[in-house]
């Protein structure tokens, strides 16, 4: 038996709990301890140890009575964007001050249905707007990966201070990626609107999948950009992410964009042969100024897949370049409307004003952080009279073109597409985007296309950078063919060798 119960993968823990080698209570306690010791990382914004222990005891009882679910007794972290009944949910925004939802999101309720245990709520960029987890009302999250050249003492000192210089865990699901990489939970829920699962996974050496749009219910997850948002997991292995997705996915009549299709047993796809699969390599992802090590990583990925019997095909996705700017019209536009409900009337923060209008204005000025306010304003502008056609309608037309690019590739028999997940390894807290917001936006250049086209995308560690930081590869699949992604990702994971995550220094 493993001495540190937090070092189990989700699959290992599942098997150990199911075969009663360990109890859920022990497993949960180990994670609660780990979380307490890791408060400096700021990955959790709310710990729910009592709830976790209660759930663990209930799990052990179900295991004893032979009625265990597929995630029975497994402790997880939940991104603060998900409604958790009676438990803090603020999307890491001041504007939802004190909000306790009287309802449970569909995705989390499915996790509890399957026996999982909730450890607490995870930090994130405010309303999922950000790529570094620096926009959270609760402050930035630190990655468990030490910056190149830093020793543990320097790291610990920075954790006590303003965290400047420590690495970002990516965003917006930075609490999720940091907690999973630091072994604070077996896996975590996350969400992805432009790359918010895949980029943090790539930055922290974890695995993240954004499923096909419509695969997971959006009900009970605070909306950022409705046509792009999808729930998905971040976990430490491909298999773990497959196990998580099976519980998270599924049709929900409460979400009109939910797709009524059966959920496969994704775990079965892990380890399946990829012989004869056609893997597309899109030339447009070879962007100007791409670091040589990213290029090399990509090439390495190609070699691994070829060695596993896949057929490598050069393809073209000509509208790739337009995806990021089009995303920065569509997403803020939807956000400006989705966030109109935060008005100080029915829940959350209210800042008084001389009349109703100034109450709204004061509440929203104080309640929303800078990035959120900026995106609401851009979104308001591109929808406003006289600009709607030039910006919003045009961006939606471009979305049609982006999707068509992928459709043509898939029509030609491509099974999955391989690209880098991010244009660089993780950067330092406070390093980017302070003067020019666009600098930060460029992080999502490889991931947004997938959201714009509604496709499934998976990030899997491919290796380390020259300075020893994790780098991720991205796989893009056909709609609802997540299984292919798991099979191909497993090949990469096996070939690359499981990345060794940092030992606790925090």
């Amino acid at each position, binding site marked *: 038996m493993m001495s540190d119960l937090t070092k189990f993968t989700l699959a290992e823990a599942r098997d150990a709990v199911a075969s009663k080698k360990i109890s859920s209570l022990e497993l949960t306690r180990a994670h609660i301890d780990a979380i307490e010791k890791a408060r400096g990382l700021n990955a959790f914004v709310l710990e729910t140890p009592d709830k976790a222990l209660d759930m663990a005891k209930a799990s052990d009882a179900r295991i004893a009575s032979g009625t265990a679910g597929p995630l029975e007794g497994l402790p997880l972290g939940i991104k603060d964007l998900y409604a958790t009944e009676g438990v803090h949910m603020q999307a890491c925004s001041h504007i939802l001050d004190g909000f306790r939802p009287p309802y449970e999101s569909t995705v989390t309720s499915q996790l509890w249905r399957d026996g999982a245990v909730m450890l607490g709520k995870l930090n994130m960029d405010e309303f999922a707007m950000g790529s570094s987890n620096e926009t959270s009302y609760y402050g930035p999250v630190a990655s468990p990966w030490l910056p190149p050249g830093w020793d543990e003492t320097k790291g610990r000192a920075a954790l006590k201070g303003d965290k400047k210089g420590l690495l970002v865990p990516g965003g917006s699901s930075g609490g999720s990626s940091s907690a999973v990489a630091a072994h604070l939970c077996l896996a975590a829920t996350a969400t992805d609107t432009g790359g918010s699962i895949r980029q943090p996974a790539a930055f922290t050496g974890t695995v993240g999948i954004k499923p096909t749009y419509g695969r997971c219910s959006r009900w009970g997850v605070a909306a950022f950009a*409705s046509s792009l948002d999808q729930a998905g997991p971040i976990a430490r292995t491909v298999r773990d992410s497959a196990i998580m997705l099976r519980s998270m996915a599924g049709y929900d009549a*409460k979400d009109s964009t939910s797709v009524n299709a059966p959920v496969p047993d994704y775990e079965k796809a892990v380890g399946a042969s990829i012989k004869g699969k056609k893997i597309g390599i899109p030339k447009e992802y070879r962007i100007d100024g791409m670091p040589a090590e990213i290029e090399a990583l990509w090439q390495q990925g190609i070699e691994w897949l070829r060695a596993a019997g896949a057929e490598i095909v050069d393809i073209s996705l000509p509208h790739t370049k337009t995806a990021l700017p089009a995303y920065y019209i569509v997403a803020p536009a939807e956000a400006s409307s989705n966030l*109109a409900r935060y008005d100080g*009337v029915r829940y959350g923060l209210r800042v008084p004003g001389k009349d109703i209008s100034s109450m709204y204005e004061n509440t929203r000025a104080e309640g929303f952080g800078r990035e959120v306010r900026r995106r609401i304003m851009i979104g308001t502008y591109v929808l406003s009279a006289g600009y709607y056609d030039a910006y919003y309608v045009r961006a939606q037309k471009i979305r049609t073109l982006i999707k068509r690019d992928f459709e043509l590739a898939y029509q030609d028999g491509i099974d999955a597409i391989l690209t880098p997940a991010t244009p660089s390894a993780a950067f330092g807290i406070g390093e980017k985007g302070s003067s020019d917001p666009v600098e930060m936006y460029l992080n999502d250049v490889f991931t947004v296309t997938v959201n714009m086209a509604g496709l499934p995308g998976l990030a899997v560690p491919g290796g380390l950078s020259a300075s020893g930081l994790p780098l991720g590869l991205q796989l893009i699949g056909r709609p609802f063919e997540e299984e292919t992604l798991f099979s191909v990702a497993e090949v990469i994971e096996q070939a690359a060798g499981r990345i060794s995550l940092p030992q606790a220094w925090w």
Partner: protein
Amino acid sequence: MTTAAKPSKLIKGATGDWEIVVGMEIHAQITSHSKLFSSASTSFGGDPNSHVTLVDAAMPGMLPVINEECVKQAIRTGLGLKAKINHRSVFDRKNYFYPDLPQGYQISQFKDPIVGEGEVIVDVSASEQIIVGVERLHLEQDAGKSLHDQSPTESFVDLNRSGVALMEIVSRPDIRSAEEARAYVTKLRTILRYLGTCDGNMEEGSLRADVNVSVRRPGEPLGTRCEIKNVNSIRFIGQAVDVEARRQIAIIEDGGKIDQETRLFDPGKGETRSMRSKEEAHDYRYFPDPDLLPLEFDQAYVDELAKGLPELPDDKRARFIAEYGLPPYDAGVLVMERESADYFEAVARGRDAKMAANWVINELFGRLNKEGKTIATSPVSAQQLGTIVDLISAGTISGKLAKDLFEIVWSEGGDPNVIVEERGMKQVTDTGAIEKAVDEIIAANPEKVEQAKAKPTMLGWFVGQVMKQTGGKANPEAVNTLLKQKLGI
């Protein structure tokens, strides 16, 4: 509109004639159990915030799911307006901040509504019919309710109505007077009630009108319009059109200019006033709601709904004229409400239809109106009234006694046949008995007999006396004939 102004519709200003131009946006609450995008009840009233789901309260992460019945009701209504049904329509968000709009946007249909162009045939009077074009009909959510008079410093917000399904029916500016405006809404209400798609209850706000009024000199292009919001009775619609047109004419004749604005009709003061809260220029930033997909259905779906439509007022009216030989006006009155038309047909079937129409329109409607009752609560059933008509036709009772009989049935109920029997109301056709009465009256009134010979209109007096003596039961024809004979006139 390029049609020439109708002289009879023009109104006189200080400097000449003016034409009123009116277009209307009617908000009709759809008859359904639950709201457009949530499963909350639509029933009227209820404690504050009791008919509210998490979706209606716009809690974070809540999503809309459309109610199929509301879609069907909109299609039925479109069919009833002989309008184009759009097989693909799109829901848009109309963004603005208001405390009774919890999402910060109203889900409506902007560019692609579910129903396109149609028309309403409107009877303005017994002799005048106009056609009002319908530009579109779209589905949208109602807002909640703000109460402003509960506290000096606060408004109170109740979301019970928030999310209730509305059909917004937009007319073309084809209306030229207050009278036409009233008649249009009346007719539209009739159609909706026939279809069962809106109960038309204006007191409860199930039907509200935004009235767009402008004025112009005959033959000139359209003037600047003002929108009078949420007028909630047909009478007020007429008054609002009149006072607003007068206001605009006075301004223009004074050398002023009309500002396009939103106004409120104050029935107490009989005036319209500018709405402060709506003064600010709006920019609604419409865009397709990403939480909803386009609404699509095929022609078979529409055909199935068309099959289930009832006979509509215009068709029914035409049939009443053709089948029962009713005057168009009477037919129009009878078809105003589907229940009245059904009632009439139950009375008329197999009987003298004109007599049936007379009884329904004059006796029954008159009495119902007086007592504030409706066909549904009428104490006299169609079967009872039919029996009364039968008794008249068979000559069993006189028209006069029939009215008494109607009164008895109204207040006491019962089978008219039995009442007539038990209370001896049968008409006396036995000439012997009548002759006896005639003879007695002639003998008792020699002077009147002389007068009558000189002035035959005196006959009426004798008829009255005979009827009195026979307790109204004498057959009036027999009385007449006998009197004429005996008086020699």
